């Protein structure tokens, strides 16, 4: 084929459209790569570099970036280096720029220590010694070994103390219950009128119990605080790259490693332990470190509650529209309307949820059942139930569309055969139609979950918070607390990435959360797509 001919036939246009496909796919790949590189790499312990500078004390930390600088012959090609120096408590900021031309010598000292702390981010420096109070100095081979042993001992004790603190929290819960019961009694009294029968004895008894609980609480609390303080006085001494001493309590140190002398296996172990913490740990440092467990839990629970409402309602609506309603103008209009709801902005659903569920229904529930707690709202404020219901409304159209598609793909002949055999409509539905439509229903269900997992805007105004004090599911009666606020992976991204005081330091956490969210959503979507395709194939082979 000659060039001119191909030009005349419009082959170049074909190439143009091909470029559009290619560009789009490239953008998708770049997006996934950016998230993966930034998200996956963060936990891998990085080498600590010690830069000896000509004009100032040495700087140690992780190399975080570089940009072209003025000099040209010195180390690093004269690039300016961005070093994550950590030690926020000492320097005030996590990152520092170093001029490439000022770098005299670069070292990677094998005994450089990276500490992950409960507060103030990472510490980079060198171990100087131990200052132990009530922990027996372990017989380690060297200072590092004994430090590690002492640290793990301190943490064992800290964990035991935390457990006791948890037990103590149950006491406070009981006190709170008593307070509410008293409030309810008082409320009932005032409603019955002052002359009404006063269970004063009951009130006094409750008050006495409450006082006793408070006394026990204070006693135990004091004990725990004392022990914690004693434990905290076990410290280790470190020095930063410039030789400044820092005395850090052992219980402050979450992890301590020497990245420059770690092998691949040690690094993998470190990586896995960080990953484990991510999935099961609590967030620290205003969500920028630690784990994501409450957010994952909240997301999953919200999606489950949502499914309880959205799946049956969507399926019933679809069956009605497809199998029961008589096809006509009205049904067509209703169908268009329901389909269109899938395209209505999610924030509109959020507004509806806020106005109707939270302030409307929630307000009524508070008035009727929780009057003694007013004006503090119980259900009249955002909570996991309202968020789930809002998302259920949002995802019903998704379920309806997919279910209808599944139902309409079933050949008429099968229904007719069933009816001809004397089955009723309901029997046909239950025995023939629904089993065949299961993949369609499942597809809709999974797509709905994928949408719900990724949706943030409506949640922001119906019950998601940056840090929920307790999970919506716990050991306290009645175990499922539908009125509680919850955390959510998507909102976590928004909150940590945009509303945290130290966005730079929070970025890696956001990338990891993003990665997790994308993985969940993609797994769900791919499953749905696969199911749908397999359904199509099956029905095609069944009919032809």
């Amino acid at each position: 084929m000659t060039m001119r001919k191909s030009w005349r036939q419009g082959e170049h246009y074909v190439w143009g459209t091909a470029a559009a496909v290619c560009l789009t796919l490239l953008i998708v790949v770049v997006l996934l790569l950016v998230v993966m590189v930034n998200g996956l790499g963060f936990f891998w312990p990085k080498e600590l570099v010690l830069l000896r500078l000509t004009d100032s004390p040495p700087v140690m930390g992780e190399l975080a970036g570089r940009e072209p600088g003025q000099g040209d012959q010195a180390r690093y090609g004269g690039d300016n280096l961005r070093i994550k120096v950590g030690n926020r408590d000492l320097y005030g900021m996590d990152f520092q720029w170093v001029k490439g031309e000022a770098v005299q010598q670069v070292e990677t000292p094998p005994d450089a220590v990276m500490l992950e702390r409960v507060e103030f981010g990472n510490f980079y420096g060198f171990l100087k010694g131990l200052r132990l109070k009530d922990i027996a100095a372990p017989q380690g081979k060297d200072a590092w070994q004994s430090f590690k042993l002492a640290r793990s001992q301190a943490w064992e004790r800290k964990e035991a103390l935390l457990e006791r603190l948890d037990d103590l929290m149950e006491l406070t819960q009981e006190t709170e219950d008593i307070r509410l019961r008293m409030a309810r009694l008082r409320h009932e009294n005032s409603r019955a009128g002052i002359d009404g029968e006063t269970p004063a004895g009951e009130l006094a008894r409750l008050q006495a119990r409450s006082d006793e609980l408070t006394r026990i609480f204070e006693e135990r609390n004091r004990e725990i605080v004392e022990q914690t303080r004693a434990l905290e006085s076990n410290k280790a001494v470190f020095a930063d790259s410039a030789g400044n001493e820092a005395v850090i309590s052992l219980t402050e140190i979450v992890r301590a490693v020497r990245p420059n002398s770690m092998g691949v296996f040690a690094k993998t172990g470190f990586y896995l332990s960080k990953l484990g913490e991510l999935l099961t740990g609590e967030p620290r440092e205003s969500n920028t470190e630690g784990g994501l467990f409450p957010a994952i839990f909240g997301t999953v629970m919200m999606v489950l509650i949502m499914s309880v409402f959205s799946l049956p309602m969507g399926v019933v609506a679809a069956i009605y529209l497809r199998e029961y309603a008589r096809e006509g103008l009205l049904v067509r209009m209703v169908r268009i309307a329901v389909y269109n709801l899938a395209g209505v902005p999610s924030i509109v659903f959020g507004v509806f949820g806020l106005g109707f569920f939270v302030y409307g229904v929630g307000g009524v529930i508070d008035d009727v059942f929780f009057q003694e707690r007013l004006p503090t709202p119980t259900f009249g404020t955002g909570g996991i139930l309202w968020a789930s219901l809002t998302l259920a409304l949002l995802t019903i159209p998704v379920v309806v569309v997919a279910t209808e598609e599944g139902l309409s793909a079933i050949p008429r002949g099968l229904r007719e055969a069933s009816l001809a055999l004397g089955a009723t409509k309901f029997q046909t539905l239950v025995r023939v139609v629904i089993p065949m439509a299961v993949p369609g229903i499942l597809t809709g269900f999974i797509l709905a979950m994928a949408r719900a997992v990724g949706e943030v805007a409506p949640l922001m105004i119906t019950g998601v918070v940056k840090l929920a004090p307790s999970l919506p599911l716990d050991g306290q009666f009645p175990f499922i607390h539908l009125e509680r606020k919850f955390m959510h992976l998507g909102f976590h991204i928004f909150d940590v990435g945009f509303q945290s005081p130290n966005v730079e330091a929070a970025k890696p956490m956001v990338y990891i959360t993003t990665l997790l969210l994308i993985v969940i959503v993609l797994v769900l979507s791919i499953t749905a797509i696969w199911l749908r395709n397999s359904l199509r194939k099956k029905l095609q082979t069944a009919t032809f």
Partner: protein
Amino acid sequence: MDQKLLRRVRRRDRMANWLITAGGLFVIICVLGILVLIANVAVPLLLPPAAQQVASFPLPRVSGEGRELLAVGVDDYLEVGYVITGQGEVGFFDLKQGRLLDTRDLYPPPESVGETDRPEGPEAARTAEPGEPGEPEQGSRPGLVHADPLGGGKYSLLWSDGTLNLVRIYSRRVFDPQGRPSMERMVDQQASLTHSGVEERANPALLSLGRVFGGEDEETQTRVSLLQDGKILVEKHIRGMDLLGEETLENFREILETGLEAPITALQLDSEGNNLYAGTEDGHLLRWTLQDPEDIRLLDRLQGFPDGRVITSLGMLLGDTTLLVGDEKGGVSGWFPVPRGDEGMRVLALVHRIKPHPRPVKGFQPAHQSKFTASISSSGTVHLDQLTNEQHLLTLTDGETRPGGSAPAGAGVILGAISPRDDGYIALTGDGQVILWHLRIPHPEVSLGGYFGKIWYENYPRSAYVWQSSSGTDDFEPKFSLMPLVFGTLKGTFWGMLFAAPLAILAAMYTSHLMQPGLRRYIKPAFEIMGSVPTVVIGFLAALWLAPLVKASLTGFLLIMGILPLTVLVALVVYGGLARYPFFSRLVRGHEFLFMAPALLLGVWLAFVLGARLDTALFGGELPAWLFENLGVRFDQRNSIVISAALGFAVLPIIFTISDDALVNVPRNLTAASLALGASRWQTVWRVILPSASPGIFAALMVGLGRATGETMIVLMATGNTPLMDWSIFNGMRTMSANIAVEIPEAPVDGTLYRTLFLSAVLLFITTFILNTLAEVVRMRLRKKFGQY
């Protein structure tokens, strides 16, 4: 067959029929009820204000007939009304029964008269003695000359002996030992401001206004008197603490002259005593600043009305910025100092004109919690007007006929007051009738005109579209123009669609008919997966990854648009040359997009390298800085380029999927016919397939438009959320959806902001619903058409 079983089966079927129908209808009604419920919240915004006359009775006889009545008022609960008489007494009456409750003397107690240096603290002067009319001594006591309402039941009272005092009249709810509530009527003497000089004996004050401002440590008392000879006497007493904790007192006095022939006809002082306004008989308006007592200056002296009409009354709107001017022709206008010319220069200017009265304006009664005002004209009618958006709210007339005949002469409102909570208006008519109206003006600050038109706000140099919903202070003027938000939405949608639409449609054309059919199985899900990426992720990457990148190499990003087509062209030439080898030709056909990747990557790389070169060579390192210095173009990091890419990424998959469906479903025989006639594959796609599927592509664009309009998280994160109206591609915007997300958590339930946000949700809902319905109808017809083949 078993009859029982059959019956059971039938019964079940019937039940299922019922249940499913009921359930299905319920779900559908629920889902459709959303719009109704949202709209229901927004509707009160647009309801007209209403007034209802709830009481009308003859004013009970307050002791001491023969003197005129100076003021009327009502308490917080609309239960107790009061009048202030020329005798210097306040008479309280029950508004339900029209019965006099008691009378109190307002003259300052002797110990505080003449002691300018020791103003009384706000403490109750007398306690209540319900049911027992007070017995103030009559006789030699001076009478009351003038009562100036300051709002909140406070009055500045001028007595015939020249004494001026501030009182607060109010009632509060008390409970007796049996727990029964009753209203206790209170009169607080707050301050007393006497003249310090003597010469006023010969030149007495016609009118005096007093203001007290300050707290525990520092207090400024201001007294402004209009003297008989037409001059104005200003006196200030500033009480403070010196470094040693000793109380200090500074006294200032100054005589002001207008420098005009015409006498002053109206005088007004703001609530802090800092600005003094005067209106004259020939329509002049004057403004002095009294803020610094050692530097009292005339700021404005201007002819307010070219026809020289008499200015009959002045008032201050809530917030002390807008001056209300009423004139002889019945005109009501709002004035405030407007920034003009040089920095800091402000000139009093006519800003708002509202519906005039038929007769001269006699007085203003500004609202206490909102920026509307009542005005009374000498025809006896009351107008309620919102100044900000120049909206006439209500006209109150004494339309009731008296028992026993029609309205007598002298009817018509002569005195009135808005209740402290802006929910009632009490009036006194010329023939001694008391009338109480309940007002229902829940959202005076908004109107359709205000939402979509330009409005001149206080302290602004001109009228503008502004969205600024809240601020720290109570007397803030909320600015609810939806235009910046609508504009932002349109701008974001436009840039997003500009990115997504061409890419999506071209890609759909390729994947539907030009690509190797086997590959479709993988490419289409790839686009669907792209569509399932949560928008919060896209927004995050756009704002924290893409935005800094765009800022760092803006030139490169701008160059991409030119260089990419170029490299594609180069690739075409190269592959065109290679195409003469049949092996290559076969390999490429249907896989063109894979071969395009190197060209595109090369193009992007080239654009960035060239961009960096250009930056150093032409723009002194960075384009954004250069743009600002040389062209004055402000560059935001979160700008429309970033939005274009992010929003485009979000809507691309949906446009692609729907277009692709439409293109694929074009009946095979059309394609086959075209190819059989010898058309090339592109000619077939372009001339046959695209025209038949164009309604579907239109539908795809509509759905995409709907998605882009309502997208929230991306714009919330990547636009910067500044409600500006600027088409510049280097600036951000604020969209309606992001606005809702930002503001609704802080909006008080059922307040104006809350309802306004619901209104914008309704707008979003309707817009997207129309777009989607359009798309769906088009698609249905298309499906039917294709079904024929």
